[in-house]
């Protein structure tokens, strides 16, 4: 077994309108989409959001299959919530399996909840699919600037995200290396009882931690050597600029989501 990377920050480069939108606009659109999803309560509301998400997928020129593949890791949760809601909602009985009863309300409920989850995951994953991590970081840094009045540094947050993105692959490679080294010394990460396996994983964790601290030390020196002294007086290579297309995209989203929210409001 190799320790594999999780698909965080998965990005599919492209040159579509959606790819070229300002990352801040995309973050705001994703946020508004999520909020609207939790407001709607009827069938037509979900149809509206579905069309909206489909519209974005179409203009991002990503294949629908690729976007849907983002749901795969969630299969278990989706099936689980579906079943729970299907069998454990009281109301008018629809089908009767002896002690298990599917109600009409349960059926509708589980459909709605799953639609909500699926649309939420695909809708927000479009953000990372179409935005390079660097741009996303820059966008979040800029959006979180107002938090500085609470003495929270958006620059530090963005730098943390950058360094994390930079070092996750490095540490995954390193974990695999240590794992192989421990295996060569007879450690087994699959067999044995829980205590034994935990001990084996500990033998993985300790060298990894030592290495992380050493890396952090050296990285700090390297950053200081390059005149890093916090966010003050720092400029950026890529300045974010809101253009016409960002303005149109934003207005369009607000309009669509507003209509969808009104239509989907009634139960």
């Amino acid at each position: 077994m190799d320790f594999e990377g999780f698909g965080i920050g998965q990005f599919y480069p492209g040159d579509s309108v959606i790819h070229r939108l300002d990352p801040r606009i995309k973050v705001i659109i994703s946020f508004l989409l999520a909020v609207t999803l939790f407001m709607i309560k009827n069938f037509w509301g979900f149809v509206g959001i579905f069309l909206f998400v489909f519209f974005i997928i179409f203009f991002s020129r990503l294949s629908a299959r690729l976007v849907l593949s983002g749901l795969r890791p969630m299969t278990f949760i989706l099936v689980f919530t579906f079943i729970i809601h299907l069998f454990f909602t009281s109301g008018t009985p629809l089908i009767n399996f002896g002690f298990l009863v599917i109600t009409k309300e349960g059926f509708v409920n589980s459909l709605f909840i799953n639609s909500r989850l699926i649309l939420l995951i695909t809708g927000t994953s479009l953000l990372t699919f179409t935005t390079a991590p660097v741009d996303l970081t820059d966008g979040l840094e800029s959006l979180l600037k107002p938090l500085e009045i609470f003495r929270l540094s958006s620059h530090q947050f963005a730098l943390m995200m950058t360094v994390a993105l930079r070092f996750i692959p490095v540490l995954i490679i390193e974990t695999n290396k240590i794992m192989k080294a421990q295996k060569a010394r007879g450690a087994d990460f699959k067999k044995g009882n829980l205590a034994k396996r935990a001990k084996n994983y500990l033998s993985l964790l300790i060298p990894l931690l030592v290495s992380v601290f050493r890396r952090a030390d050296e990285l700090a020196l390297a950053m200081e050597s390059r005149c890093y002294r916090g966010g003050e007086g720092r400029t950026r290579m890529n300045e974010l600029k809101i253009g016409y297309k960002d303005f149109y995209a934003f207005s369009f989203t607000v309009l669509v989501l507003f209509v969808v929210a009104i239509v989907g409001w009634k139960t």
Partner: protein
Amino acid sequence: MIKISDLYYAYKVKNKHIEALKGIDLEIPKGEFVVFLGPNGSGKSTLVKHINGLLTPSAGEVVVDGINAKEDDSIWKIRQKVGMVFQNPDNQIVANVVENDIAFGPENLGLSSSEIKERVKKSLSLTKILEYSKYEPHLLSGGQKQLVAIAGALAMEPEYLILDEPTSMLDPLSRRKILKIIHDLNKNHKTTILLVTHFTDEAVNADRVYILDAGRIACYGEPRETLGNISLLSKFQIKPLAMTSLAASLVKSGIDISTSVLTVDEMVEELCLLN
């Protein structure tokens, strides 16, 4: 010019003092290519870390172009003047895209966006990695990553570039490539180079070689005076050049040639002179 006088430094570890530097005096004129050799723990890294203000002297002075690193304000001026490249490229690349990493230094200097882009492009072409500008660092080879680290330092447009064992994790081919690039920088861009290394052959074309031992400068001089002196090198556990060892063996077996031969060409010349 870098001027270091009577420099002492001790690391403090749990009430204990580890004396790493015990009185270093040296002067490095602008434009030189200087190599530091010496056994493990002799204080090479500790010494070079003083030159861009990563460490402050326990005693003594470090002055770069008339600026003393001791004063708080001047440290940023010095760090801009003196670029630093470390051994492990993985631990000095900050950003997750090559060009953004190279921009990190200039961004810290508060330059304008267009100036930063220009510098990034220039550094990428100086290190010959233009085609990797959009790559994620973890997809590059060790040698390419080290070039990214060098480009990151060059983007600050330093007058002095310190490299602390930059090639010790690389294969021979990448090692030669990096050495060629720093020699080019020295010749064509007048960048003063300070190279710390364990590879004696990297010192052959230097202007000056310093040999450190136990926190002191054991000796220094041109490559021929230092690298060509086998008994001196063996005293400090430095591996002599292949040709120098060969010359020494030849002399031992009664062939009368100079013992301070450094390169194959020189060896050929010496041997031809025999008849």
